[in-house]
């Protein structure tokens, strides 16, 4: 039994690692971009949408092992977590700071749209995301 559960955790970890490797921009969050279950996740979604940056999203709520293994991989204790080109960029605080300083667009390799607000409030932008994949669900 122990071996079996170890193998299952290993496969969860591999699935997360593949998702990070295969998606240039990927957000691990609580809930989905259309229905975020946490204000911090909602704000990260709104921020990426304000920059019109395509992103993959993974809801970590359905399986507690997702959160556990993700934090083990990233050495980061909280959700959401944004990865760009395989590298952890940060959680909600860092993403918000980078957005407000203009650095997030550079990190994402996008131009800041002229209509992008100076600050993104949680739940401000509820427009449909441009691209979503949720390959871990």
């Amino acid at each position, binding site marked *: 039994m122990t071996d079996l559960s170890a193998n299952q955790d290993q496969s969860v970890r591999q699935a997360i690692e593949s998702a990070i490797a295969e998606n240039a921009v990927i957000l691990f969050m609580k809930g989905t971009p259309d229905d975020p279950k946490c204000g*911090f996740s909602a704000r990260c979604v709104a921020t990426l949408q304000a920059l019109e940056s395509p992103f993959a999203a993974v809801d970590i709520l359905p399986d507690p092992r997702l959160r556990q293994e993700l934090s083990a991989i990233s*050495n*980061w*204790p*909280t959700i959401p977590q944004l990865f760009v080109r395989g590298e*952890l960029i*940060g959680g909600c*605080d860092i993403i918000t700071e980078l957005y407000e300083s203009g650095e997030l667009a550079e990190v994402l390799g996008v131009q800041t749209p002229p209509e992008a607000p100076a600050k993104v409030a949680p739940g401000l932008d509820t427009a449909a995301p441009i691209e979503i994949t949720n390959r871990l669900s």
Partner: protein
Amino acid sequence: MPTSEELKTRIEAAIPGSHAEVEDLTGGGDHFRARIVAQAFAGLSRIEQHRRVYDVFGADIGGPIHALSLQTRAE
């Protein structure tokens, strides 16, 4: 239930020379915001600065402390 004062004390004890301001965002003792200035952050990326603070609390983050919003600066 952790208090703002307890978080401030733990941060300042664990990161020498740091100054922390901690707010209890909801009054419920589980959602906090901390602003921390520490010389020890010099040369560290934002990620590394935040990890340094999260490390102070270990498994308490996501446990008794549901959320700890951080703003960190060196200098």
